[in-house]
């Protein structure tokens, strides 16, 4: 429908000449979408790899269970966090909204970054990172799930991709975007320049300046839906935010630099969490969480 509306607007406003043939319409649509740069799952995959690498580089590539991961295995606390994340990812795929990106091409990946700063962050393409301090701050699997669900929400809602400044595409020639022509060196150079800028935009949003407050509130709201559908206690999000609130003002880094005040997030989400009720957390969830945390 949006395709039709955009084309109709162009026709009516006379901003360009369009051949009213299916081929002409398709070409015009291609040009418009190219200009808007709606990144495909394949583009998201290639973007995500570089964003994830940059995020790990900023943490000196220090992450848990590295030997096992390098050997192609999930082990220890990483296996546990990945299991919790996997349940949430399945839930996200079952609770999709219009515009969601719920099925990354290479699947979901959950990595524990070694850091004393409470934080969690995510890159396009299903990359979710949580710091050891963020896990330490959680008191249950359900609170960990709240953290991971918030990050999954950022990925499925395309928040990092959305932080790429639209003007970055302005100087890219049509030939660089036209899939029907061979990409020449100049076009590749133009796209790589946009890629460089896009990396800066996304890393700013993810790790430095943060997203807008509304974006974070959306991630809380969508994350809450995801965790509740998976069977986790909605109150766990509020409890974790209260822990963050107590930490607020401690140092200013990590989540404090990139998220609205925890007390504001609580005000925004508390009503919805209350509506969703409370889940009695089985003892086994506490026990396996404790066992995983001890391995950190």
């Amino acid at each position, binding site marked *: 429908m949006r395709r039709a509306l955009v084309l109709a607007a162009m026709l009516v406003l006379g901003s360009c000449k369009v051949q009213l043939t299916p081929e002409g319409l398709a070409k015009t649509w291609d040009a418009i979408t190219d200009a808007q740069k709606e990144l495909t799952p394949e583009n998201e995959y290639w973007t995500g790899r570089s964003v994830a690498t940059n995020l790990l580089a900023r943490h000196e590539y220090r992450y848990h269970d590295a030997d096992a991961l390098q050997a192609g295995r999930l082990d220890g606390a990483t296996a546990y966090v990945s299991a919790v994340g996997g349940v949430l990812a399945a839930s996200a795929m079952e609770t999709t909204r219009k515009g969601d990106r719920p099925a990354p091409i290479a699947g979901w990946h*959950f990595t524990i970054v070694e850091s004393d700063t409470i934080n969690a962050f995510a890159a396009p393409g299903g990359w979710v990172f949580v710091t050891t301090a963020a896990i330490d701050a959680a008191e249950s699997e359900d609170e960990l799930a709240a953290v991971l669900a918030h990050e999954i929400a950022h990925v499925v809602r395309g928040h990092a991709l959305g932080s790429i400044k639209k003007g970055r595409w302005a100087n890219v020639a049509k030939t660089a975007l036209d899939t029907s022509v061979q990409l020449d060196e100049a076009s590749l150079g133009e796209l790589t320049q946009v890629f460089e800028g896009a990396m800066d935009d996304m890393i700013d949003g993810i790790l430095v300046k943060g997203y807008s407050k509304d974006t974070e509130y959306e991630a809380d709201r969508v994350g809450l839906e995801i965790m509740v559908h998976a069977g986790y206690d909605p109150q766990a999000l509020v409890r974790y935010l209260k822990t963050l609130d107590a930490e607020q003002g401690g140092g200013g880094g990590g989540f404090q630099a990139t998220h609205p005040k925890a007390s504001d997030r609580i005000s925004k989400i508390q009503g919805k969490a209350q509506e969703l009720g409370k889940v009695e957390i089985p003892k086994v969830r506490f026990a396996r969480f404790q066992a995983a945390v001890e391995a950190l």
Partner: protein
Amino acid sequence: MQRVRTSKQWFAVIAAGLALAGAVAVAAPKAGSTVTVRVMSAKVMKSPKFIGPAAGSVSRGDQLTIAEIKGDWYRVTGAKTGWINRTSVVDGKVALSSSPGGGGAASRDEVELAGRGFTPDVEEEYRGKHPDLDFSHVEAIEKTGVDLSELGAFVEEGGLGGDQ
């Protein structure tokens, strides 16, 4: 009396016409249609849900035939028989390689589906400009995905699942 339409009305008429044309041109998948696996790998499930027993695995580029549709799930036949979620496939027969977006030897289908923008060629250029970045970590981690089909025991033990 001849009715004179305003620009706004023409906008609505053309939009409606084009929307109808679009709806006809992009037919919804139905039993008998072919779909192509878009994700690197996916489990074909014994029942239409992400967590539970799998009937087998399929890879990017595998083509499957829809036998039945239930919500977002397709019961498929072909390389494997079972249920696959619509988010893992793309409609139609599409020539896809294991590398999303292709690269030098990408098929026309591959390039069309991936669109332009950020592709393997762009990543290669970017890596060339940033030799300090070590991509070996994401390349290793990427090979260790969470296998959702194997989380049944974890879900059951923890009293999770809901509708899953």
